């Protein structure tokens, strides 16, 4: 039986987290930005589960359920806002969000 070492998973989730973070800063399509936020939340989930396994403590795994629920609510609201914005702006590009900058 070969188990994956915990640090591998931790490093992996750290990489996912930073991919998500960089995506928010770099990507221009709002739908992709929403996915990047989900990516960051899921990286936190993975970290929780890994530590939970490592520490033999159920609290971390329990937290994940709550976080998944919150993430679902968040993406529902995010998509709703995207639809509302598309109706007035006719675009889902972050470059077009500039009315308030004037």
């Amino acid at each position: 039986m070969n188990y994956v070492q915990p640090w591998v998973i931790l490093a992996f989730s750290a990489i996912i987290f930073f991919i998500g973070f960089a995506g928010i800063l770099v990507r221009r399509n709002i739908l992709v930005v929403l996915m990047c936020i989900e990516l960051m939340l899921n990286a936190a989930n993975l970290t929780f589960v890994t530590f939970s396994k490592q520490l033999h403590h159920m609290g971390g795994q329990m937290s994940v359920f709550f976080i998944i629920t919150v993430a679902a609510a968040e993406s529902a609201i995010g998509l709703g806002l995207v639809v509302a914005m598309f109706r007035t702006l006719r675009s889902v590009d972050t470059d077009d969000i500039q009315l308030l900058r004037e």
Partner: protein
Amino acid sequence: MEALNTIRPELLTFSREQIVAISPYIWLFGGSVLAIVAAALRVISPKWPVFLITLATLIAGTISSFLLMSNEPMVLFSGKMVADVYANFFNLIFMISAIVTAMASLRYLDDGKIQHPEYYLLLLFSVMGMMLMASSLDLVVLFIALELMSLSVYVLVGFRRTDRRSNEAAMKYFILGGAASAILLYGAALLYGATGSTGIRDMLAFIQKSPEGVSPLFVLGSWLVVIGFLFKVASVPFHMWMPDVYEGAPAPITGFMTTGLKAAAFAAFMRVFVSAGYGAGLAESLRTHLHDILWISAVLTMVVGNVIALTQTNLKRMLAYSSISHTGYLLVGMIAGPLSEQGYAPVALYLVSYAAMNLGAFVILTILAAKDDSGLNLHDMSGLSRRHPWIAFSMAVFMLSMAGIPPTAGFAAKYYLFYSAIQAREVPLVVISVLCSAISVYYYLRVLVYMYMRDPVESPSGQRVSIWAALAVAAMVALTLQIGVLPERMVTAARKAVISL
């Protein structure tokens, strides 16, 4: 099977005392359920049933929180939540700001043709989230409460659905707020790995047990959590979203965000800070580390907020930058907290005073706003004293209070805050804050100059003043002057609240 043995029956039942201790939360929860039903029915009229249920719920919650102020702290839900004086003190701020917001919005929503009952529902949900934030003792519970608050507010910001500004503001706030929440959550995950628990008090116990040094994992985790909080309170360099969001949001919601949201973020920030042993028990190196981060952030926040506010001509945007500068003063209080004998009481007092004066100012902006929140520029204020003498007087009181001129709440709060900072030997910081506060007098008094010394202009803004909004303004003027003239009682309340932490 082991896991089953750990379920203890006493955790599944409530004692009478526990039910009494969470009664404000029960009121709010019951009221939201009722309001959902009333909103779904829509039989009589779309606004009155939900509005009245919201108001009644919030008033009931306020009264029960007020009565619970003298109770002993009680830990609930196996250490996930605590109902103490501190939580109830902040509950009062949240619920009163929601009452004022609801009262101010009634006419505003009618004028904008966006009178949907969901508005009041979302207000109730976000107050629930704020209350849970102020009383949570666990980082995951804190995260859920934070999201409950933020998700409702994202929708409220975009409530003027047909207006492009409102939509853009909501989207911007959603993306940046979601990123900040995720950063905070990742920090919580790392702290969980470093200490073996998500409970704030367990973390403190863990740190105290291993005083020889904290692991890099812990340092990184606390960094991320602090960044998440600094974002939520909008301190420089995480402030970029704030002016845009405040300008795009409907005026009453902007007022709600500057007071409720800020107070909630600071309440949770202080609780995590104090409980995680910023004052005592932390390694010396980590403490100076945090101190330096907050010091730099406080100075930048005060300077940037005040200097940019000087050039603003839109009142909403000006108040947004002034809100940033007030965050800076609050951070000064956070730095001074563990080092002076007042503790964090000045921060709590400042939050109350700031809530009173800022809510009042935003209710006035709500009254004056024309359709789509235009007509809030400085020159629209010209000669307001002749068109609406009482509104101009109230606005003058709020502006003087924000500038920190004596018989008002702003002066008492600033005096107390800077005094504690001097006790903590942060003299350079106090000098910078006083200078910044002197700069701020210019842009606050400019509003007075326009209101009292310019000739009236033809303004499209609302002619009639709704009785609800007038009541709200009058209550806020009374509170501002009361804290300013007799700060004694509020100082005692703030001190009691902070001691119970």
